[in-house]
């Protein structure tokens, strides 16, 4: 099949990449994906579904990258591959120039569902990752967890159980738990999708503040263009399945950002452009599909 690649890196938005102005961040790419191919078996047959194909992505330390795309495009699959849950079938996917062996404490995942352990208090949920890796004394872990709870604004509920918390509070605990293991790469899979719209906006600003405080490198999967543009240094737009990145947008504003940004015409323009690319890619894929079936 002829692959029609229409990929222009740094799509004319905001000029130079943010990392370029900062020499400490330029050293080597933290994560590199080249022509990544991910397949999974179709249930009940020997066929495979191609989830991700010819996907290229480079992430520097300190980057905040958002992956947006139509649902089922393979963006979460790519995230799972980076986390080490899913093996790749082709191409290279390297972290600091080493292949990814499997799940590890250097990458922490924040899922859409908070998935807190209901029999543990908030504090014990946050120390959970540290307990598993056994790298830290109990008192030290508790101390770090207390600090993180303060960072996410939940210092007063440390002793409560998850069932007693609101959805937004659970999302904060979820984030704090991932940060507790001090990951090199924070992987977020639509972490705010299940939260109401108002809390979501608050959480987005909170996330930027926390990332600035902890100097986190993050990959954030979302289907919400506005969210992606508000959070990211770069927004990578996926094509429909089999997913690849059709265009990257540089987001020019310094992080952390505040809510006024959402009301500026520049922000709206960027969102429109991202949406244009996204829907263009969807239309193109549909055309190809009809062509293929006519032939």
């Amino acid at each position, binding site marked *: 099949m002829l692959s029609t690649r229409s990929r222009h890196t740094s799509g004319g938005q905001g000029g130079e990449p943010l990392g370029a102005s900062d020499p400490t961040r330029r050293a080597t790419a933290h994560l590199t994906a080249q022509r990544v191919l991910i397949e999974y078996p179709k249930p009940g047959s020997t066929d495979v579904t191609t989830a991700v194909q010819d996907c290229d992505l480079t992430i520097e330390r300190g980057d905040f990258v958002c992956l947006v795309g139509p649902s089922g495009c393979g963006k979460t699959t790519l995230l799972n591959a980076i986390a080490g849950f899913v093996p790749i079938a082709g191409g290279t996917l390297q972290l600091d120039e080493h292949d990814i062996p499997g*799940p590890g*404490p250097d990458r922490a*995942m924040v899922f859409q569902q908070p*998935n807190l352990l*209901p*029999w543990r208090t908030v504090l014990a949920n946050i120390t*959970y990752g540290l307990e598993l*890796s056994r790298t830290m004394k109990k008192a030290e872990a508790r101390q770090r967890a207390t600090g993180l709870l303060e960072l996410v604004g939940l210092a007063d509920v440390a002793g409560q159980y998850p069932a007693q918390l609101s959805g937004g509070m659970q999302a904060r605990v979820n984030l704090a738990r991932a940060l507790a293991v001090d990951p090199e790469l924070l992987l977020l899979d639509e972490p705010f999708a299940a939260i109401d719209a108002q809390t979501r906006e608050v959480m987005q600003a909170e996330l930027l503040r926390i990332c600035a405080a902890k100097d986190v490198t993050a990959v954030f999967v979302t289907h919400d263009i506005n969210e992606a543009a508000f959070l990211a240094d770069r927004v990578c737009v996926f094509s429909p399945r089999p997913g690849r990145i059709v265009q990257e947008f540089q987001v020019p504003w310094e992080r952390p950002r505040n809510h006024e940004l959402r009301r500026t015409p520049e922000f709206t323009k960027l969102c429109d452009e991202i949406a244009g690319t996204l829907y263009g890619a969807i239309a193109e894929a549909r055309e190809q599909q009809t062509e293929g079936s006519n032939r």
Partner: protein
Amino acid sequence: MSATSSPQAAARRQEPPEAGHTGPRRARAARRRWPSWLTEQRVVATTAVVAALVAWQLVALARVKPALILPGPTDVIGAFKSLFSASAIWTDLWTSGEELLVGLLLATVLGLPVGLLIGWYRRVSYALNPFVNFLYATPRIALTPLLIIWLGIGSSSKIAIVFLMAFFPILINTAQGVQALEQGAVRVARCFGASDLQLFSTVALPGTVPFIASGLRLAVGQALIGVFVAELSGAQHGIGLMMSTAGQQFQTAKVFAGLFIFAFAGVSLTALLRRVERHFAAWRPSTH
């Protein structure tokens, strides 16, 4: 009408103070406070039990049936007195108690790990399910004659029956608990690089505790059935045997006494387990 002496006012005072009390009424309630253990639930429950006992006594006193057929509560108390004045009752209690507790303990010690394995490993469940289904569907009490042939009429055959009765509720509940585990929690643990053993001890076991506890409560009821029936079909000592002997001799009050001993054992074991359950399940959103 004076409110302080009316029965309605007294009943109202039993309610918790938050239940919509207005200022002056609350002030009046505070003047004559009831002790904290005297909850509405306890008062009503105790009244109902006392009423039932009184009704029973009245029916017995009316002598619709002779005392030989239907003894009253006072006759049963008399039977208890005569039972505990002899030494045989202690042997019976000890024998039945040992059968019950050893059987239950064995069922727990074996049923828990096997249940966890069945719930955790699909292959283990494939291999063991035919046996579990067969034994669960069979009235296991029907194995009593077989076990008595194999193990004799001593305690060991009774323990085996109690074990068989109690084993399956524990096993099946535990396996169900593991299978009902939140997969999200398992993914989180895996993501943090948990080993199988860590996954087991930090996710599978604590998540299964409520299921295990209800399995244990069911097991107590089944075990008591096991003790009684096993002793009926051949024993040297035991409360069940004592009851059946008394029944054959028309010592009806003594039969009632045995019945109450069984009931007491069941109720106190269940209450104990409920307490344990509550201790472990503090994290659950409270339902009462």
